[in-house]
């Protein structure tokens, strides 16, 4: 690598690590997402020039913040002739003075405000996801575009429209008040879980950045536990993702084929992640404020705690689904509950409850896959065949299609026998 390439890799790494803190500090001072992003962009470009000449400073983050502040002052002055007295410029200059007086300036961590702003319900869900990854996670626009199978210009446009809306509509840069806290926290946690699920559904043949989304989501949830401690739903979400992610290596065979949970080699599960997830779930549950993420984590825990698939405590899982359905009713929860019910032995009742969801879940691939599985068990080959076909049609992943096809073929074989 050339010196310049080494340096830009180093700057990229620093930006990746410190971006959220720096952007948050700048937004706080500037009152504008757009201007903060532009200023930080200016600073990272200048870093490339200055650091090549003088080496990397002792505190690259403080250097970047200082240069970004001055770049922002320049931009404001250029834009408005009488900006010398503007409150933003005065504030930036004050902060600049204060930092210069210190050897190791403290960069206040405003990332909690930042996350809540990025996940504001006035933004479209996909935009919340993209903005969080870009601003808090420090992924590049290109990486996010790849991760969500979108074009880079389209993703860039989405991000700049979002930043413009935050400014124009005055979406506040604040941590929500107690009255709104639960709902707004849930919006943040949903965004993080969406990021995780996007990574989870990516097959082994896909771009590493897609599977990397699982790590990204776990990183964000860890950050949240640090920024807002004592929130059992944050801990629940983190536990849920750790327990799921522990099974990552066991989910695909060497050829990239999908291995369902009950056929996975449990020795391939990451015991460290499982233990961390279980311990975290204990901490969350001890707070006695149950919530949907804690319940889902508890269900995941029962799956990984079983030594063999047959030893899974389905009766307990069904109870947890009952509670989840009461707390956060949705057709998808009802579907999973029906699957658990079938496992407890109530196959026909489970099939009836599942059939009642056909309208709501017509376009949801797992519904058809589960319908097919239960029909197979009930010996209803006709229904099973049609449902497998529909599941294959709706599947987004090559390895999943292959697995479903094998199940459907197996059905045809057993009929011949």
């Amino acid at each position, binding site marked *: 690598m050339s010196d310049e390439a080494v340096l830009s890799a180093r700057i990229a790494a620093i930006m990746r690590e410190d971006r959220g803190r720096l952007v948050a500090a700048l937004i706080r001072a500037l009152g504008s997402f757009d201007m903060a992003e532009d200023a930080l962009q200016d600073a990272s470009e200048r870093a490339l020039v200055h650091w090549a000449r003088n080496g990397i400073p002792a505190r690259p983050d403080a250097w970047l913040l200082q240069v970004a502040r001055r770049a922002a002052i320049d931009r404001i002055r250029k834009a408005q002739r009488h900006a010398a007295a503007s409150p933003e410029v005065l504030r930036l200059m004050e902060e600049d003075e204060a930092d210069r007086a210190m050897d190791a300036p403290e960069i206040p961590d405003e990332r909690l405000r930042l996350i809540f702003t990025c996940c504001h319900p*006035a933004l479209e869900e996909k935009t919340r996801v993209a903005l969080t990854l870009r601003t808090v996670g420090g992924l590049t626009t290109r990486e996010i575009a790849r991760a969500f199978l979108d074009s880079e210009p389209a993703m860039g446009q989405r991000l700049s429209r979002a930043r413009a809306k935050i400014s124009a509509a005055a979406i506040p840069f*604040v941590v929500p008040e107690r009255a709104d806290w639960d709902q707004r926290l849930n919006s943040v946690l949903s965004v993080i879980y969406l990021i995780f699920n996007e990574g989870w559904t990516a097959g082994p043949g896909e771009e590493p950045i897609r599977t990397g989304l699982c790590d990204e989501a776990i990183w964000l949830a860890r950050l949240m536990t640090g920024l807002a401690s004592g929130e059992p739903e944050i801990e629940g979400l983190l536990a849920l993702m750790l327990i799921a992610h522990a099974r990552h290596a066991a989910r695909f065979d060497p050829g990239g084929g999908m291995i369902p949970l009950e056929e996975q080699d449990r020795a391939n599960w990451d015991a460290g992640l499982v233990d961390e997830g279980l311990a975290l779930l204990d901490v969350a549950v001890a707070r006695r404020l149950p919530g949907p993420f804690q319940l889902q984590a508890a269900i995941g825990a029962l799956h990984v705690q079983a030594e063999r698939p047959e030893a899974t405590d389905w009766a307990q899982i069904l109870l947890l689904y009952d509670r989840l359905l009461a707390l956060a009713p949705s057709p998808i929860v009802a579907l999973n509950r029906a699957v658990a019910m079938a496992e407890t032995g109530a196959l026909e009742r489970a099939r009836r409850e599942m059939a009642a969801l056909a309208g709501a879940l017509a376009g949801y691939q797992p519904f058809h896959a589960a319908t097919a599985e239960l029909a197979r068990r009930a010996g209803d080959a006709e229904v099973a065949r049609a449902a497998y076909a529909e599941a294959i049609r709706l599947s987004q992943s090559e390895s999943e299609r292959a697995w479903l096809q094998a199940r459907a073929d197996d059905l045809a074989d057993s009929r011949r026998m």
Partner: protein
Amino acid sequence: MQYLALIYAEDGAGPQYDTPEFGAMMQGYANANKAFQAAGVMRGGEALQHTSTATSLRIRDGKTETMDGPFAETKERLGGFYLLDCKDLDQAIEMASLIPSAQFGTIELRPVMEINLPE
């Protein structure tokens, strides 16, 4: 920041005139007005007559053309508005959620653009 709260609802949605529910809705509007005044955000607001009374106009080739009816024929019709001066979007959402028509229609919040016109 000023926000225009545009109140949209389908014809026939919401309570019928001369029913107790209609009375409750009007009371709800009176309450909303009082809450906006008390919060110091009220800059104005009116109910509009039905879109069948609307006239649209445009000037083409220097000639004023008028049309009977609203600019866009949609199922949800603009039935009224408030102009609210709020500290941020969160406060605007909190205020707009007091508008009774939000129960059966939709309130669109649009930030007002600040422009400087030439003298």
